[in-house]
């Protein structure tokens, strides 16, 4: 059915292909000329009215014969670097080595090699590229009579410090999280994996934002086909702006029509490092702390980095609880509705009496009751997320009073329903990744359960499972290791086996090198 819809949409796409290139960059490659005045005026024209665009002109040489111009964007550069490492050597220190300058050497080469004391310096002749690098925080230096300019890396701007992420909170484990700065993010990963095989490939996506995107993987572990596929899909993206990794996620995912996401993400370097070490590819986007990881398996959403840091027994139990809570958060209200309207006979008799007493006098059918309660909960949750914190608290008080107390007291909603909805709500907070798909499925299942009972829920469940098993994420079956069944990967699925047992990387991800630790790593007594 989804394929059918997809075909239709593809057809529509074909017709509208003509409009596709409207965002294409007007790229007339302008080269630098030997005349610095002309160059400056061209750049001025392109940068137009920008107030933060600074042009600094000065002279070099004994007779002040060499004209030099610096360009940079105010606030994106480190002023001390410009003052101490560019202007000072050129305008003052150069007198110490004036003899060298006069030797009619290639001046720009001299400046690059002997005078400017900044790490990253490149020669560039295209004005477009010079302006682009200027916009990313570099300083551009033009020297009269040269058709090449210097790009000096001076980028520095106010950035958020590395903090503990608000999501993915752990009791045990590193507290650091990614920031909006891609360089610091790659550093965070590099600090976890000290291996020359850790590769960061850079890309720029977004015609207007020119967002830096890095594809990170570990050579020798990752399946090369996955890397190629990631590159291919990223290369296909033609969009004006990439403001967050979500843009990329939605443009490269395998199943855009599915409720379930097939691209994983994390805000923690240790999680991303662990995923790369299992053979996944990370996609780091500038401007967001959320790093994407592909391929994603369904079970991954139940994993937490803490599972591996703490001892396995309790963590296996917690894993089971997590799976259980996803099931509860999707099915609890619908099963409750089905039981109370269709299958009263399967409820234990004493419970049935209690429920019947509570239902007595409530005006609405159970299905409507559940639907309204769940929608109310979603409203409250959304309000709680979006509202400023002090107001959010007021919301939760109102919610607790309105949903919990008043509706039951007034006899509008039965109290078992409130309990079920509350249980559902709590359970839905456990699986963050599938939380959004669970919310929608829950409502669908309430309707099916209310109309068709447990029979309908079973049909719905079969549909969901068929769909899940049909999904793939970058060539890897989404529902592995359950379907296709991979026995060895079950060690890290519903349970988390002890580390000394998990000697091999997950086979589902087809790693090139699957040995993770030496076999028989059981701790030994001396």
């Amino acid at each position: 059915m989804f394929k059918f819809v997809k075909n239709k949409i593809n057809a529509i796409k074909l017709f509208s292909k003509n409009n596709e290139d409207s965002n294409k960059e007007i790229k007339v490659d302008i080269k630098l000329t030997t005349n610095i005045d002309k160059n400056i005026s061209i750049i001025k024209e392109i940068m137009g009215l920008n107030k933060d665009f600074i042009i600094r002109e000065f002279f070099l040489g004994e007779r002040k014969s060499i004209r030099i111009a610096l360009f940079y964007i105010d606030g994106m550069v480190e002023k001390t670097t410009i003052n101490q490492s560019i202007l000072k050597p050129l305008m003052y220190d150069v007198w110490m080595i004036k003899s060298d300058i006069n030797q009619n050497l290639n001046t720009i080469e001299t400046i690059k090699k002997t005078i400017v004391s900044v790490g990253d310096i490149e020669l560039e002749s295209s004005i477009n590229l010079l302006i682009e690098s200027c916009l990313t925080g570099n300083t551009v230096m033009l020297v009269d009579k040269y058709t090449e300019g210097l790009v000096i890396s001076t980028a520095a701007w106010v950035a958020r410090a590395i903090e503990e992420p608000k999501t993915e909170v752990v009791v045990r484990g590193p507290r650091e999280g990614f920031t909006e700065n891609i360089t610091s993010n790659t550093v965070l990963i590099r600090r976890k994996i000290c291996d020359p095989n850790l590769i960061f490939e850079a890309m720029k996506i977004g015609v207007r934002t020119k967002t830096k995107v890095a594809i990170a993987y570990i050579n020798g572990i990752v399946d090369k086909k996955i890397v190629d596929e990631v590159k291919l899909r990223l290369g296909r993206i033609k969009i004006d702006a990439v403001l967050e990794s979500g843009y990329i996620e939605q443009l490269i995912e395998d199943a855009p029509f599915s409720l379930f996401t097939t691209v994983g993400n994390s805000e923690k370097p240790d999680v991303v490092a662990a995923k790369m070490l299992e053979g996944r590819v990370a996609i780091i986007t500038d401007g967001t702390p959320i790093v994407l990881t592909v391929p994603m398996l369904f079970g991954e959403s139940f994993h937490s980095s803490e599972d591996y840091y703490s001892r396995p027994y309790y963590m296996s139990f917690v894993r089971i609880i997590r799976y259980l809570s996803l099931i509860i958060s999707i099915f609890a209200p619908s099963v409750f509705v089905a039981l109370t309207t269709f299958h009263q006979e399967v409820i234990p008799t004493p419970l049935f009496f209690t429920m019947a007493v509570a239902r007595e006098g409530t005006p609405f059918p159970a299905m409507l009751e559940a639907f309204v309660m769940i929608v109310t909960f979603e409203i409250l949750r959304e309000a709680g997320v979006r509202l400023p914190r002090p107001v959010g608290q007021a919301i939760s008080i109102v919610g607790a009073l309105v949903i919990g107390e008043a509706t039951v007291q007034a006899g509008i909603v039965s109290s078992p329903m409130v309990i079920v909805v509350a249980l559902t709500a709590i359970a839905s907070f456990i699986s963050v990744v599938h939380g959004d798909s669970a919310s929608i499925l829950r409502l669908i299942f309430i309707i099916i359960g209310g109309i068709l009972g447990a029979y309908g829920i079973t049909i719905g469940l079969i549909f969901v499972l068929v769909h899940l098993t049909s999904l793939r994420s970058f060539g890897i079956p989404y529902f592995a290791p359950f379907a296709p069944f991979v026995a060895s990967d079950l060690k890290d699925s519903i349970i988390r086996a002890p580390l000394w047992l998990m000697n091999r990387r997950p086979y589902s991800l087809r790693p090139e090198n699957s040995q993770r630790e030496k076999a028989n790593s059981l701790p030994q007594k001396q």
Partner: protein
Amino acid sequence: MKYIRKPIKLSIILLALFVLAGCWNSNEMNDLAIVTAFGVDTAEKPDEISLIGQIINIRNIATAEKSAAGGDVFWNVEITGETVFDALRNLTFINNRKAFGHHYQILVVGKEIAEKGVIKDLEHFARDHGDRRTVWVVVADGKAKDVLDVKTELEPINGRYIAQLVEVRTATSKAVGVTFQNFLQRYISKTTSTFASIVRVIKKNGVESLELNGTAVFKKDKLVGELNGKETRGLLFVIDDIKSGIIVVEPENQGKTSLEINKSGTKVTPKITDNGVQMDIEVKLKTYYAGDTEDFFNVTKKEDRELLQLYANKVVKEEIEAAIKKAKSLNTDVFGFGDAVHRKYPKQWKGMESNWDSIFPDIKVSIKVETSIDSSFNITELP
């Protein structure tokens, strides 16, 4: 199928899923009249029957949240009809909600109707998909209505009270608990007789209460007699359905003392000899010494233990003999001896099946009881 397009194919499958599912029905809980007990009685007109549905008055049930509103917790609706199902549907004349029998707990059969033959009246409860067969069947000593009308303590819902009364029978093992399913199974067997507990209304100081007392024995579907408590336990020993119970032994010249049954196992082996059919009943009993005695027995001593075991064997043997004697006098094979013979001698059984009624009273029974005393609750001597 090759030419049908995929979406059409898919929607056909989808439709089939919903159409082929069979019957379904949704009921809101607050539209149901919850029945906790059904009773059948004879009606005034001879060709009619009287059905009692005990309906929960849900508003008067006390929960943790609210206390009872006062008034009766249940409401016994009595209605007559030509058949049980007819009467059940007639119930809607006087009761505004549809009777919901899925959770009924007990089926009470009036004595009068039981004597006339009860299976045609109970058949509906076996057939109806909504009514479960795991309910207990009890015979009222009198009218079913009278039993269901009694207001009970601790558990205000009368139907549940009777069900729980049957459930706690295992403490004594002097009453049987027969589910509707068991009742029917025994009835279907050509030779085995079915039975059920008897519930009596007893009046003390003007207050009515219920008592589980004895076992009603049926010949086919007609009530023919009763077993008392002792005989009932004998029956339970033979059919190996003893869970617990107290055996009171009285060694000569020494006071009464009690043993608690912990475990009991019975093996019934039929034998066809020249003298007819013989049943070997072998009971193995594990008990705890529970004291209650004047003369102290130290069961860690062999002599004391053996004395008690001897008398316990005697008591059990007497109970079994009493049960067999009564069953023989009623000519009802409540023990399922016929089935046991059938299993062991399938060939000879063919000739015996039709005249089992004449064979059964002459069956010889040899009873062997082996009691062991395993514990004295950690008391060996009285302080």
